[in-house]
């Protein structure tokens, strides 16, 4: 039972990192990306590939994953600079579809549909992290760092510029803000941190395949942000906790066939998104949105 709870807690930490980084671009930069799972996948595949081929050093994996994800983020930043919100959603959706195809077809690197199995545990300074409790500690530290760093950025002058752009791009431009640079940097930060979650995920599960990085995953991450409350500090964390525990809770319903749990989960958060938008568009934690 303890092992089960530790496992859930580790996954909650990883999902919370994903939700926070997505919230950073959605809530503060106004960039609604349906391609977040792409960068999660990039992080996971980089970590897995490096662990299998070269090194199990967590540090090297993190640096490589963050750099690669950050570079790929140009594919998001470019359309985000060119068109406004609704069209950008379509571009990110297309990017997600394309990336899913690459993940499942580039067999020499990603292992195709079957994925990569037997990923060796990551090590920090020569110490291999095999104990789940230790790994949970690692994930929790990573989450804490991401929360602190992201909150610090949001409250800095960079964060205020970002919000200014979200609320009125032309006004920010008139005030002499370098809109293109600020947007590009924020997308870079978000995707690089998202890749950190991918690295942790691959090292933790020691098995990854394309299933975890599809449009369904991107939708789930977006739902976490929205259900919790977009543009708030605690919203994405609350959303990540709720939506990660939901499938676990559903398994206790005896009348639900196991194979339908995924679909029932998606129906629940789909419905939650619709109802929240009608009755409380700020999300569950949105009441305190005054300072955001």
């Amino acid at each position: 039972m303890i092992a089960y709870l530790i496992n859930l807690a580790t996954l909650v930490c990883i999902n919370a990192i994903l939700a926070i980084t997505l919230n950073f671009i959605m809530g503060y930069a106004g960039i609604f990306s349906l391609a977040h799972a792409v960068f999660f996948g990039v992080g996971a595949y980089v970590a897995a590939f490096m662990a299998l081929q070269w090194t199990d050093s967590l540090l090297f994996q993190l640096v490589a994953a963050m750099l690669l994800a950050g570079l790929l983020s140009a594919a998001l930043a470019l359309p985000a600079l060119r068109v406004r919100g609704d069209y950008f959603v379509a571009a990110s959706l297309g990017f997600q579809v394309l990336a899913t195809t690459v993940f499942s077809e580039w067999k020499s690197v990603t292992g195709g549909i079957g994925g990569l199995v037997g990923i060796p545990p990551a090590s920090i300074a020569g110490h291999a992290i095999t104990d789940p409790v230790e790994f949970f500690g690692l994930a929790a530290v990573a989450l804490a760092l991401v929360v602190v760093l992201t909150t610090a950025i949001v409250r800095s002058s960079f964060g205020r510029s970002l919000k200014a752009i979200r609320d009125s791009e032309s006004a920010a431009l008139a005030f002499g803000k370098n809109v293109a640079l600020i947007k590009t940097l924020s997308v870079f930060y978000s995707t690089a941190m998202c890749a950190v979650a991918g690295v942790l995920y691959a090292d933790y599960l020691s098995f990854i395949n394309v299933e975890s990085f599809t449009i369904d995953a991107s939708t789930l991450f977006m739902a976490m942000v929205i259900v919790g409350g977009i543009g708030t500090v605690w919203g994405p964390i609350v959303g990540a906790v709720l939506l990660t525990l939901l499938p676990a809770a559903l398994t206790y319903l005896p009348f639900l066939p196991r194979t339908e749990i995924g679909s029932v989960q998606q129906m629940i958060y789909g419905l939650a998104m619709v109802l929240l938008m009608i009755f409380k568009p700020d999300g569950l934690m949105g009441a305190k949105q005054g300072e955001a």
Partner: protein
Amino acid sequence: MLLLQLIINGIQVGALYGLTAVGFSLIFGATKIFHFAHGASFAISAYVFYYLYAVLLVWWPISILAACIVVVVFGVALDRYVYGPIQSTDGSFFTIFVGSFGVAVVVQNLIGTVFGRGFISVPSALSKSVELAPGLYVAPTAAIAVVIAVACFVALQLFLGRTNIGIAMRALSESPALVRTFGLNPKAVSTCAFALGSLLVVPAAVLTSMTSGLNAAIGGRVMLISVAATIVGGVGSLRGAACAGLLLGIAENLALWRFDPQWSEAATFLILFAFIVLRPSGFFGRAVNS
């Protein structure tokens, strides 16, 4: 000969893409609602037709009529009970998009639960190919797709240009206040746009169920193509959406000439991406970066 075959397939697919995209574009143009659940409308009408015609063996005109009724009810209900309330409190793009997206997620999973997630297709004599020339196979559905697409498009242009309600629909996209001043109810006009836009997916849904088949996730794909065609064609231009749909269909099939089928969606994305970066206003549209 392979190339010609691919172009013909592309025209067939593209005609249907164009028709679906015109429906999306019509709704978006008139009401400014980013109707992400347009793909869900497609999936619903396709599965209603499949269930009645192929499972319950109902006569085909009745099956198609039922698909039309269900999809129009779905579209109008969304406008009334989801978009309407959202717009009355907070009409931002984001809230409408999330609400619409939530509906699409629910519909996709409901269909998956009820009908299964595998591929299904409706057997029909119309999709049997005939060898027109050596190595060139064409099914009657190709001709039907093109004829229906052209007919619907011409009918739609006449409707928008000649009838009062059609003119009101175009006026709504310019200025809702003016529509109200003129004594018309913008809500009623918006309902018409949703009914008509949703109705336009039916021919594509029915023909697709006979040719390439359906699965529960088809809504997402249709959605991507409709939005891509709307952007590539130029927002607010129905003619642009139709042409772009045709272009995407042909490009997708031409990609098969050199690449494996799983890459054909990549063609859609590359065209969309190129247009967004190089020409965000599309073929015929206005700039969209404001």
